[in-house]
């Protein structure tokens, strides 16, 4: 293994190190690998716990607003007042109902993270597989571009764009997606390179299949296990990054109810009204822990064995 490969695989959660190239080789499973992996993953306790947490948080984020006792922008009590009959978890720094704002505050972070993840996965997989398949100057150019984007810490890249253009939601989705793309591309290129050497790719070339059809129809279905793990990993990071951008105050703008923004708005009064910080912190934490548990379950299922076990 060259040193470059060590860098390629040993990033982030350490999961990527464990997942490359262990897809089931069973021919009849070709094209249905993801079903096989998901079924195995669902047999693991951690996946089920993760799934339970994520479903609960998504339900709260999507339907919470329909059961909220107050409007998220209505002033209902004395600022920073303690939990009472009118405000179950007290009032925030401006006197709005903490619980209602919490019930309203999850939807934006969810859709933004999902959109950013989808963008990063699609662009990253495309670039990675094309690079793996081309094996020529195009590979070099794409990977050099990758290195440049990787030199920016994700949050700094997003802040650079926001400071230039302004706090626009589409911009945050776009830049968060673009911080994922090179990391996804690196993993997918590694996975693709192993498949490119296999006989059925050569067979497709001999038959005269178009290049894009080989990449999309032959290469892609055979890299599903790293792809599934990447989707999970990137979702976890997207949630963290999108919420962080709102938290530092350059994402969603007041008076929107949003978990990240809620923490920012109420952190100065944390000692008198901890609930306004505690609830959104727990919500974001549960969400990322949930997606990470699912990801870990999928990664284990994809390898077929416990991590650290022989594969």
């Amino acid at each position, binding site marked *: 293994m060259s040193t470059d490969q060590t860098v390629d695989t040993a990033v982030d959660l350490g999961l990527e190190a464990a997942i490359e190239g262990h897809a089931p080789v069973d021919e009849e499973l070709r094209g249905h690998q993801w079903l096989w992996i998901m079924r195995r993953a669902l047999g693991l306790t951690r996946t089920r716990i993760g799934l339970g947490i994520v479903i609960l948080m998504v339900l709260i984020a999507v339907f919470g607003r329909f059961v909220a006792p107050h409007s998220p922008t209505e002033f209902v009590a004395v600022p920073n007042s303690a939990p009472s009959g009118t405000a179950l978890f007290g009032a925030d720094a401006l006197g709005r109902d903490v619980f209602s704002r919490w019930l309203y505050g999850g939807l934006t972070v969810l859709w933004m993270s999902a959109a950013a993840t989808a963008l990063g996965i699609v662009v990253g997989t495309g670039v990675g597989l094309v690079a793996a398949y081309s094996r020529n100057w195009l590979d070099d150019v794409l990977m050099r571009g990758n290195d440049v984007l990787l030199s920016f810490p994700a949050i700094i890249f997003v802040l650079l764009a926001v400071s230039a253009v302004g706090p626009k939601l589409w911009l945050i989705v776009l830049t968060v997606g673009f911080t994922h793309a090179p990391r996804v591309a690196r993993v997918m290129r590694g996975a693709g390179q192993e498949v490119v050497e296999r006989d059925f790719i050569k067979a497709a070339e001999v038959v005269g299949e178009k290049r894009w059809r080989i990449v999309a129809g032959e290469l892609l279905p055979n890299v599903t296990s790293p792809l599934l793990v990447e989707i999970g990993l990137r979702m976890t990071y997207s949630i963290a990054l999108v919420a*962080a951008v709102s938290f530092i105050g350059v994402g969603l703008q007041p008076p929107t109810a949003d978990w990240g923004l809620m923490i920012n708005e109420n952190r100065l009064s944390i000692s008198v009204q901890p609930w306004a910080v505690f609830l959104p912190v727990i919500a974001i934490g549960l969400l990322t822990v949930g997606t*990470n548990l699912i990801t870990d379950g999928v990664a284990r299922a994809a390898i077929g064995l416990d991590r650290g076990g022989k594969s």
Partner: protein
Amino acid sequence: MSSKQLLKRIGLGLLTLWLVSLVVFAAVIALPGDAATAILGKEATPARVAALREQLHLNDSLVTQYTQWLKGILTFDFGDSAATQQPVTQLLSDRVANSAFLVFVASIIAIPLSILMGVWTAMKRDKPADHVTSNVTLVLAALPEFVIGMGLILIFATGLFHWFPAVSLLAPGEKAWEDPQVVILPAATLIIAVVPYVSRIMRGSMIEVLESEYVTMARLKGLPERQVIWRHAVPNAIVPAIQVTALELAWMAGGIVIVEFVFQYPGIGASLVDAVNNRDMPVVQTVTMLAAAVYVILNLAADLATILVTPRLRTAGR
């Protein structure tokens, strides 16, 4: 290692940094309208806008602007802050030192801790201690830095205990190491964010080494277990951990942005957030270039370190 290999890596690093500088410079061009109006606001008089345009050299061609800017960076002249009119170097010098101190404190604890945890869990593989550690690190690894930071504040500063300050307040001109209490919670946040990753990699790499033939051989020779682990296994298992440690140190360059903001710690990360809110582009550009340079240099150092500790690679270029 051959000097050719070394030069190639350094060259690639420099090329990357140059391309990064183009991206950072392009961010200013992306300002809607123009930089002078963006800074002064829409109500500014045309005369003031014109004066600022002159001051920012916005009337020059893009190529001239870029070469001037790049020349400035290479001579450590990053221009003046658009918000305070002070030179950026003056504005950031104390803060760079504070941030460096924070990263230093976090890493001298995090790196040995994660190596020890990795080795220990590899030795206890599949025992209860390993399972518990693995589950705890899985949860911690998922938590965003600001969630960890706010959690620590709720537990140790305002809620359960009142042991540490929730906010890292320093008198003007005071350095972080003159009042080390302010660094405890921010450093703890960084450590909790980093250790799960590195210890997991270290564990995996250690398990691989423990199953290798030379470790079996050392055991068969009757060497004491302690010597097998620390003399034979760990030095080999540490190679992938070097790469990951470098990546994690580089990650801290971004992580401090959030962590410093959480604790209002007076470092460059907190400056960056202020600068983004004020659209103070010279400061944003400087901090971004610094972070990218740290990343490229650490990666280079990790590559070199890996080559130095791996005999097979050391001779590969000959």
